[in-house]
């Protein structure tokens, strides 16, 4: 296979409501920043890989209308969408496009303009297929909507289960929010920036559904992320310090929504996330990483809910199960720590859903390239892991990035 390098990253600003731009115009902000960062124009491009959560904005295949704003004129376009993991899946698609040899230089574009749509209704449609078994059990779908509809409904069960298994306390959740939101304060693209936030302040926010408080949950953002990938040879001409995507791997599990799968296969503990472990193990192996705990310098887990930062840190095989809360306590996850986590501020600070999992890869790339600015971590980052999560709690995507290509032979 061919080595694949990231040579440009672009992010729009992320805020709650961008009423001054429409969808293609908002996305253009991230896209044009990526072209500028890479020092190329759409003319240099062999293709575009894009995706978002279509049901959220009510626009089907928005690239048909808008891709002219992103440099798609007479270019190949491939649309990949997988829910919460969409951005990661788009990043993976861009990686494969280059690794396959079919294309040299591509742009990955992922976005969401949540203010245009109705994301709770969108998320509730996640539950539609689950109504069939609910009906067969005699459960009213209206109850289903109140009970499990929307992402928070799912997340609380996962959080409780994780806390029971790991010994994570509500105080740890508060500290996760502080870690992320104070990092976000140093990231110009981030949405919720809370410099000087304290765990006590988070603990005083309203309880949504035990154990999650408002302070533990992501905002809904308008935003876009774009990333330019190319071959190792072409990267050399564009930058002295590209970030190589060494490997990508995803893993899809049986669906689990409040414990009942539509396919009627299993009651799955939503915090088990076996798929994340499988994807991480595959990604490390393909990246030539034998000891992720020693080798990985930085992690960007996908954590729209506070407990997920700790849970996925474990599922990404960066420590034993149940160890993450004490690692958080040790300060190791801070910007100046041994293995900084979510230096970008993470999804809990910024969530333009379709873009979020691509932003994890983008942040890993920025940190390796040394271009993260104020939120650049203190240590040198040689290897980083970026993650995405979604679906019916059942989809995980993992990418491993490094400052050198995968060693061969």
């Amino acid at each position: 296979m061919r080595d694949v390098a990231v040579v440009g990253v672009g992010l729009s600003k992320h805020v709650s409501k961008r009423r001054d731009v429409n969808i293609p115009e908002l996305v253009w902000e991230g896209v044009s920043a990526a072209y500028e960062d890479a020092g190329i124009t759409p003319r240099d491009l062999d293709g575009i890989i894009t995706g978002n959560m279509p049901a959220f904005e009510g626009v089907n295949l928005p690239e048909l209308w808008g891709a002219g704003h992103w440099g798609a004129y007479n270019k190949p376009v491939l649309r990949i969408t997988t829910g919460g993991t969409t951005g990661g899946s788009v990043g993976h698609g861009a990686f494969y496009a280059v690794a396959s040899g079919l294309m040299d230089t591509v742009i990955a574009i992922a976005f969401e303009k949540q203010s245009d749509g109705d994301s709770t209704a969108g998320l509730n449609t996640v539950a539609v297929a689950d109504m069939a078994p609910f009906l067969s059990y005699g459960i009213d779908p209206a109850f289903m909507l109140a009970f499990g509809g929307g992402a928070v409904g799912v997340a609380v069960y996962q959080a409780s289960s994780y806390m029971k298994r790991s010994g994570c306390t509500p105080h740890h959740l508060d500290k996760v929010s502080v870690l992320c939101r104070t990092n976000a304060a140093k990231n110009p693209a981030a949405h919720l920036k809370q410099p000087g936030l304290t765990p006590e302040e988070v603990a005083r926010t309203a309880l949504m559904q035990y154990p999650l408080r408002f302070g533990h949950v992501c905002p809904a953002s308008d935003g876009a992320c774009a990333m330019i990938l190319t071959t190792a040879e072409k990267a050399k001409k564009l930058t002295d310090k590209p970030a190589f995507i060494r490997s990508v791997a995803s893993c899809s599990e049986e669906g689990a929504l409040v414990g009942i799968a539509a396919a009627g296969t299993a009651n799955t503990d939503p915090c088990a996330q076996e798929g994340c472990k499988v994807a991480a193990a595959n990604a490390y192996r393909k990246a030539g990483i034998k000891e992720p705990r020693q080798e990985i310098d930085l992690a960007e887990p996908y954590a729209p809910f506070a407990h997920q930062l700790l849970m996925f840190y474990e599922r990404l095989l960066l420590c034993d199960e149940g160890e993450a809360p004490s690692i958080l306590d040790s300060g190791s996850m801070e910007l100046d720590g041994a293995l900084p986590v979510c230096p970008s501020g993470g999804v809990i600070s910024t969530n333009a859903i379709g873009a979020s999992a691509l932003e994890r890869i983008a942040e890993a790339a920025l940190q390796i390239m040394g271009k993260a600015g104020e939120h650049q971590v203190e240590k040198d980052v040689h290897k980083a892991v970026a993650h995405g999560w979604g679906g019916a709690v059942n989809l995980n995507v993992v990418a491993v990035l490094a400052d050198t290509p995968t060693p061969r032979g």
Partner: protein
Amino acid sequence: MKSGEGLKNVKRMSVPFAPVFNWSVGNWMEQFFDGLKQKKILASKCAACGRVYLPPRMICERCFDKTEEWVELPETGTVETYTMAHVGVADNGELEDLPEPQIIAMVKHDGADTCMAVRVDAQDCNVGLRVKAVWNAEPDGVLDALSAYRALD
């Protein structure tokens, strides 16, 4: 029970909520709408290649530049292609017979490089027909400012 048996009714379960969308139109379309309110047809122009977009677009897809220039176009244009529509898409997403067949045309306004899909009120439509915009006397909102175009004498 064999797999698939008895699922027929479940397949028809409908979704018990309707999402609401509030699309931002962006500054370019807003300027276009402001123009329509004043019975002006405003298009955006790419300074680099001169391409004129109607409706306006923020980015010239060919040059990847912002279209910073604005031009007011005449109300006249040419039918690039047309159809006599006997059916339309009903609210339920299925085809329905229109009360009266209507002519839908892609009209290129004089000076524009892109088309607008509009209704044309004419006995006989053909490609190349010269048409003129007709302003709705009592528009139901700005999206309704333009009525069916009419053939130029």
